[in-house]
């Protein structure tokens, strides 16, 4: 079946530390994996994506790692800032024209 899930509903980190948000997926046929950030009262915002033929991709302060062997996806945020506080969603796309979103992890950044 279709399912994309996150390991922890809430993650609390100290400002300046690195954050790692995890996601497990079940469908090995997925082509794309994507991370979205949703700040309070706003719509989700695209952060970074990774194709299924890659295992790592880096952006500005963010890195996404994909382990297809164990069907695991992670988002690493370097030097976490208060502005990073949000709900983070992983999603998968199998070129069916729709995204399947996971449950979401709330990242809390402590000053």
């Amino acid at each position, binding site marked *: 079946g279709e399912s994309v899930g996150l390991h922890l509903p809430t993650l609390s980190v100290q400002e300046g530390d690195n954050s790692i948000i995890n996601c497990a997926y079940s469908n090995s046929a997925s082509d*794309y994996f*994507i991370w979205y950030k*949703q700040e309070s*009262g*706003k*719509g*989700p*915002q*695209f952060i970074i*994506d990774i194709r299924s033929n890659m295992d790592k991709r880096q952006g500005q302060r963010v890195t996404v790692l994909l382990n297809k062997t164990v069907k695991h996806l992670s988002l690493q945020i370097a030097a976490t800032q208060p502005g990073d506080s949000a*709900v983070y*969603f992983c*999603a998968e*796309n199998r*070129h069916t*024209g*729709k*995204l*399947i*979103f996971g*449950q*979401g992890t709330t990242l809390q950044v402590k000053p």
Partner: protein
Amino acid sequence: DTAVSQTPKYLVTQMGNDKSIKCEQNLGHDTMYWYKQDSKKFLKIMFSYNNKELIINETVPNRFSPKSPDKAHLNLHINSLELGDSAVYFCASSQEGREETQYFGPGTRLLVL
């Protein structure tokens, strides 16, 4: 300049009423979507349109009817509102063939009493 806009932002109504939510995007995208986000933040697609044509129609009650007058607009009409319809509804858009990068609107918070 808001890329994807929705109106209204808040909607409080009685059970049984009919209501509409409007969405507009000025990004020139061909594909638009409606999502429902429940109280646990779970985000699920309802519909998608490509150039005014319905592409995705998930298992959504017939009381929900999307309408796309042109490719920049996708409205959602809901008949006979029920308590379980209370949620945040998000509109989104993307370039054709780039479904992974979707631009979301600010959401419409619907509360059915």
